[in-house]
């Protein structure tokens, strides 16, 4: 599972690199770029603030960008890439085959912030087993529509996506241990589950002048299931969709 943690920054980096290269004008007119790339507006703002504080470079709203040296431009790009790693959301989710409660951070990206990636850590109490367990979830959301409901609220009529959940403990294995003959439990990992979900969300936007900790607060619900259950349903018609789906609810705090 360590590979998940390590692949995370690499993934984000590659996405951000792609975005940076898609804006060729960045070197010449920083201010305009900031306005035109809606997906990274906030990130770029933060860079400007930081630069002012540190007095290291003078990337600000000054119109004369020709004063920037190559080194300063490089520093600016470097900061912008790493800034992409700052999580923009905090997520808390109840249920959903990832423990009773999961808490974590999230990143949103895309021209309309329609993609989200969450990294969640969950707690699974012992129930009838011998001990409690921790889980980790890597979740990819897609939000195709965001409909405004007045100026203070908006509704996302569909969210969907996929998440990989891993559970920690000696009881579980990712790949078949060597004690088994080859392909003994074919296609099975007891450690990693692939889940799919669909749901809806409702967002309350905090007005600009009253923002303290967050931009908006979203409540969501999801209907989800996992690969093992889907296989059970496909294998036998006595298992219905109703038997294999579960409900989960959660909150998303958009911090920036």
């Amino acid at each position, binding site marked *: 599972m360590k590979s998940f943690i390590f692949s995370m920054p690499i993934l984000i980096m590659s996405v951000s690199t792609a975005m940076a290269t898609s804006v060729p004008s960045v070197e010449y007119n920083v201010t305009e770029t900031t306005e035109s790339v809606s997906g990274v507006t906030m990130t770029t703002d933060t860079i400007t603030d930081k630069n002012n504080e540190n007095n290291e470079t003078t990337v600000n709203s000054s119109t004369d960008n020709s004063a920037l040296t190559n080194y300063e431009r490089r520093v600016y790009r470097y900061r912008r890439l790493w800034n992409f790693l700052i999580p923009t959301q905090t997520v808390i989710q109840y249920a*959903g*085959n990832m423990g009773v409660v999961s808490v974590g951070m999230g990143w949103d990206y895309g021209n309309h912030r329609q993609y989200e990636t969450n990294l969640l850590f969950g707690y699974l109490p012992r129930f009838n*087993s011998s001990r409690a367990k921790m889980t980790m979830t890597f979740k990819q959301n897609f939000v195709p529509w965001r409909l405004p409901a007045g100026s203070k609220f908006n509704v996302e009529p569909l969210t969907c996506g996929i998440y990989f959940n891993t*559970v920690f403990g000696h*009881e579980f294995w990712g790949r078949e241990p060597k004690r088994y003959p080859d392909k003994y*439990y074919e296609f099975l990992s007891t450690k990693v589950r692939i889940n799919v979900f669909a749901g809806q969300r409702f967002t309350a936007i905090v007005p600009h002048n009253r923002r303290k900790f967050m931009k908006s607060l979203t409540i969501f619900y999801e209907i989800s299931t996992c690969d093992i*259950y889907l296989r059970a349903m496909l*294998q036998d018609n*006595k298992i219905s969709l109703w038997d294999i789906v579960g409900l989960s609810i959660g909150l998303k705090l958009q911090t920036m």
Partner: protein
Amino acid sequence: MNRLTIFLSCMSIAGCSGVFDYHPYDVRFDGEKDINSHNISRIEEDCRDKESLTVAFISDSHGWYGDTEDMIADINSHPDVDFVVHGGDLTDCGTTKEYIWQRDRLARLKVPYVALIGNHDFLGTGNETYSVMYGKMDFSFIAGRIKFVCLNTNATEYDYLAAVPNLDYMEEQHTADSALFDRSVVCMHARPYCEQFNNNVAKAFQLYIRTFPGLLFCVNGHDHCLQIEEIYDDGIIYYGVPSANRRSYLLFNITKDGYTYEVIHF
């Protein structure tokens, strides 16, 4: 905000009825626990003075819920059956939900049943679910002066580190309650010389099997097909019970003169 409170309280009520899934291996379930010991006391009570027994042996019902339902309906239609022995592999992946799905179906049996643990039932936290839902992995009971010894033989699941099969337990069972039984039947999931058995002790195992008083026969599951074989050429027959998707099971009739069996197709 008021609506939110109402919504959340609805959700917490719904949570109690199992709408929320915490994890496939959460070992969280309501309903009957310790099924084997409950059913064993029923079997011992019902069959105490019986001179002839009719026992249905089923096995490997994992994943085939429709076939399992039909099999249960078929067993229920036989008026003579005294009890049912499930040879293990109740689940495919050992998830708690699969255990519940199987338990809810097996509960439709009119007669009591006991279930052994199969290798698939060990996966993840499956062994823990089995222990809470069914009980001990090695167990025995006496019905009509016949002792049924049910053994956990899934050694590969322990990487051969555990005492599986437990020869000490077998030795204990040779003499335990010896006044109450004259004959014995041994049930297991994986039989000797299959990949799940600890074949290092296969011969020692058979030595202990042979020492059971009045041994009639052995029954196993795991191989998903009908097997009638004298594995050691010593007169002891191992009957392999087909899996549920083969739509057949074994019905044994044990009288004081011996036993007969029938392969039932449903």
